[in-house]
């Protein structure tokens, strides 16, 4: 029966080719625009490390003075850690893994004398980083907590930087010169680039995109006073000589891995106790009840990685889709109702209202399917144009199989729903009235 309806639908659509083309165009444009923006939103809000994200948490302390103005343009400094707080949590916390980290930009010297040095973005962190985030290694491994304590001059290189410097990744034991210091390479990671870059200082321009070119022990970076990239905020006059270690200057990110609900509960209590103790000593002015332990995905939501422009564009696209759908409903309604005669004859010949509904529904679905296919093509075009933008999220705007599938589904479901009202309305045409006129 459905084959027959399909042929009927094709014939009906062929009879009004211009109108059919216009309807397919309208639904294609609406679907294309909204799927482009939904895909962008999807890649910006996806789970960056699905196999681990359930066990990763970001503690949030608030060492800011009571009078610190809220809602500043440059973000909330308490999102990052001060050095003393990070070290205290690192020493006393009982998490499976824990690491403090910050981004840094360093001059990397080539191994050949003729080449010029260049700046690369990397990360200063502590030993647990690699185990906690399951960073894959091509050669060697990360450094140890002992090497952290010793301020050992060791480095882990990213795959790309190792290849650029040495032409190979099998370089464990060789030396690399970063800024003015020689480091011993202890490991080379395989390409590793979770998106969004959840562990970094989010909200600055590099929440997406590039991966770290190198990793160094945080203790060494502090000792050698390497420049920190990302937000550094100070809220009290302090000795500029030691700004990195200042208790009123935040610049570090801090992550813990907690595997069981019991561990999470214990760690939450530990955080509260720590904040209460700091409050009692007069260092924290704010209520210790404001401390939080954010699960990874909650932390990403709290940091609002989706810029308001992208949200606006999404709403614009969805509004456009809505108008297109209303348009389709109106056109299908007019079209179906105009076929009163034909429907009347079929009803008189014994077709039930339900049969008419299925027949017209098939026609609507056919339009939806064609519109969906056109929508896929248009959203690929849209995503291509998004990738031409200079923003950090732009390059990762790719459509994956589930998104591709949902495009067609959305198109067919949307058109089916839009076709339902007109089809239902037409299926109630009474046979007697219509047949009279024939």
């Amino acid at each position, binding site marked *: 029966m459905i084959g027959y309806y399909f042929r009927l639908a094709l014939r009906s659509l062929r009879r009004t080719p211009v109108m059919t083309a216009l309807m397919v165009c309208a639904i294609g*444009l609406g679907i294309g625009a909204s799927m482009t923006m939904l895909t962008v939103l999807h890649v910006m809000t996806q789970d960056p490390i699905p196999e681990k994200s359930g066990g990763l948490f970001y503690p949030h302390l608030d060492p800011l003075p009571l009078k*610190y103005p809220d809602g500043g343009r440059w973000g909330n400094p308490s999102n990052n850690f001060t050095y003393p707080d990070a070290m205290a949590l690192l020493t006393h916390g009982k998490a499976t893994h824990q690491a403090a980290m910050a981004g840094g930009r360093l001059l990397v010297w080539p191994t050949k004398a003729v080449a010029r040095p260049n700046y690369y973005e990397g990360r200063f962190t502590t030993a647990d980083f690699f185990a906690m985030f399951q960073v894959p290694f091509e050669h060697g491994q990360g450094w140890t907590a002992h090497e952290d304590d010793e301020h050992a001059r060791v480095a882990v290189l990213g795959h790309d930087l190792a290849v650029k410097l040495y032409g190979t990744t099998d370089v464990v034991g060789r030396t690399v010169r970063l800024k003015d210091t020689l480091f011993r390479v202890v490991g080379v990671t395989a390409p590793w680039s979770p998106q969004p870059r959840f562990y970094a200082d989010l909200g600055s321009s590099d929440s997406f995109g590039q991966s770290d070119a190198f990793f160094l022990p945080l203790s060494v970076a502090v000792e050698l006073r390497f420049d920190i990239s990302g937000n550094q905020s100070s809220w009290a006059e302090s000795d500029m000589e030691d700004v990195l270690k200042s208790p009123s200057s935040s610049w570090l990110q801090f992550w813990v891995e907690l595997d069981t609900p019991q561990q999470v509960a214990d760690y939450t209590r530990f955080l509260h106790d720590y904040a209460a103790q700091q409050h009692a000593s007069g260092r924290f002015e704010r209520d210790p009840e404001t401390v939080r332990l954010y699960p990874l995905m909650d932390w990403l939501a709290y940091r609002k990685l989706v810029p308001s422009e992208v949200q606006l564009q999404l709403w614009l696209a969805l509004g*456009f889709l809505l108008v297109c759908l209303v348009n389709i409903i*109106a*056109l299908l309604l007019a079209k179906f109702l105009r076929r009163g005669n034909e429907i009347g004859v079929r009803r008189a010949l014994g077709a039930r209202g339900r049969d008419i509904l299925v027949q017209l529904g098939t026609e609507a679905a056919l339009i939806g399917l064609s519109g969906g296919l056109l929508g896929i093509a248009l959203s690929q075009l849209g995503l291509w144009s998004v990738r031409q933008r*200079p923003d950090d999220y732009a390059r990762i705007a790719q459509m994956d199989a589930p998104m591709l599938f949902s495009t067609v589904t959305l198109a067919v479901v949307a058109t089916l729903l839009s076709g339902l009202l007109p089809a239902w309305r037409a299926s109630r045409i009474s046979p007697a009235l219509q047949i009279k006129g024939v």
Partner: protein
Amino acid sequence: MPLPLMPILSALRHHRLTAALLTLQVALTCAIVINAGFMLVGRIQQITAASGLPEDQLSLISVSGLDDAANAQAQRRTDLTALRAIDGVQAAAALDNGSMPLSRNYSGTGACTSQEGFDRAKAARGIDGISGCVSFPSYSGSSDLLSAMGLKLLAGRDFTDEERAAEKAGQAVIVTRSMAHRLWPGQNPVGKLLYGFNGPVPVVGMIQDVLAPMVSGVPDDTMLLLTSTSKGQISSTYLLRSAPQDRQRVLREAAAALDKAGPVRLIPEEQRRTYTQVRREYFQRDVTMLGLLITSSLALLFVTALGIGGLANFWVGQRTRQIGIRRAVGATRGDILRHFQAENFLIVGAGVVLGMLLAYGLNQLLMRQYELARLPLLYLPVGALLLWALGQVAVLGPALRASRVPPAIATRAG
């Protein structure tokens, strides 16, 4: 001739649902297009904001120093001499921190017209809302800064070399006209004192308005000042002024000259830019948004026009016989044309009224979510007229077809 409203209304009653849907579509389009248009105008104003600089004459080049031990002050002098020697360079200056209009390199502070005001601001840990106090970004650089930026002194004088070489900032400042107007309305700012972190600082001059390193489209964007103290750094940014057509050549020669002028430094390709490029990069996101707003508005209007035209087409087809009868009983072709035009006018009119309400509501939502400004009422009638015109254009084809229906069709069956 009065329009025959009754037949139109009774015809519309037969298509209640379709007409209602069309009205809804027009209303949604109206609401979205009006708000998109409002955002569009705002963005255009921002993108075209005058920087106060002779933009087509300026170029920038940055060098990254690799040797922290080098003598930065001497290096800066050598570099500037080399740059000024380039054929076609009218002025060259070093910018501290690479900070200039639309550079995104922001270094700012706050100050007040009195010490009491500043003490109050300090106690409140914020300068907002304290009278006589403002926060602002500042620029500083080497001695030729004013001429390299093409800035004219409106009053007072430029900094002296002594003021520039001072160890601590706070020897003297030059304010912009809008800064002077905010702090000392109607008075000459020269000789006045500004109270800030480094104690009172005398204002020695006033320049025309220039834009801040980052702009947000408010009048405060031109509230800033120049500070006198300037220190050489081994990584530095130089501003060059030349004839517009010379800029590319000047940049090339400047890169070569700086490469030879001292210790090994990086002069990345992307750090050699004309000011035209600086402006374009600064507003890239806004231009993207502009393109999106225009495209989606046009697409919306297009789809709505399609809907109106398509429906009218169906209706004409459906009513061919009635039209024939009306023609047979004496209606002129003009009458038929006007019937469809009036019908469209009514439907679009209803949509526009609803749409203006929706537009206002949407604006309220956007104000809350995205800090958009309040929609000026003028946008509503403009949007209404636009949709009315669109409706009339879209219905014209089908209406003309209807008017050509011969009266004889009434006598045929079917």
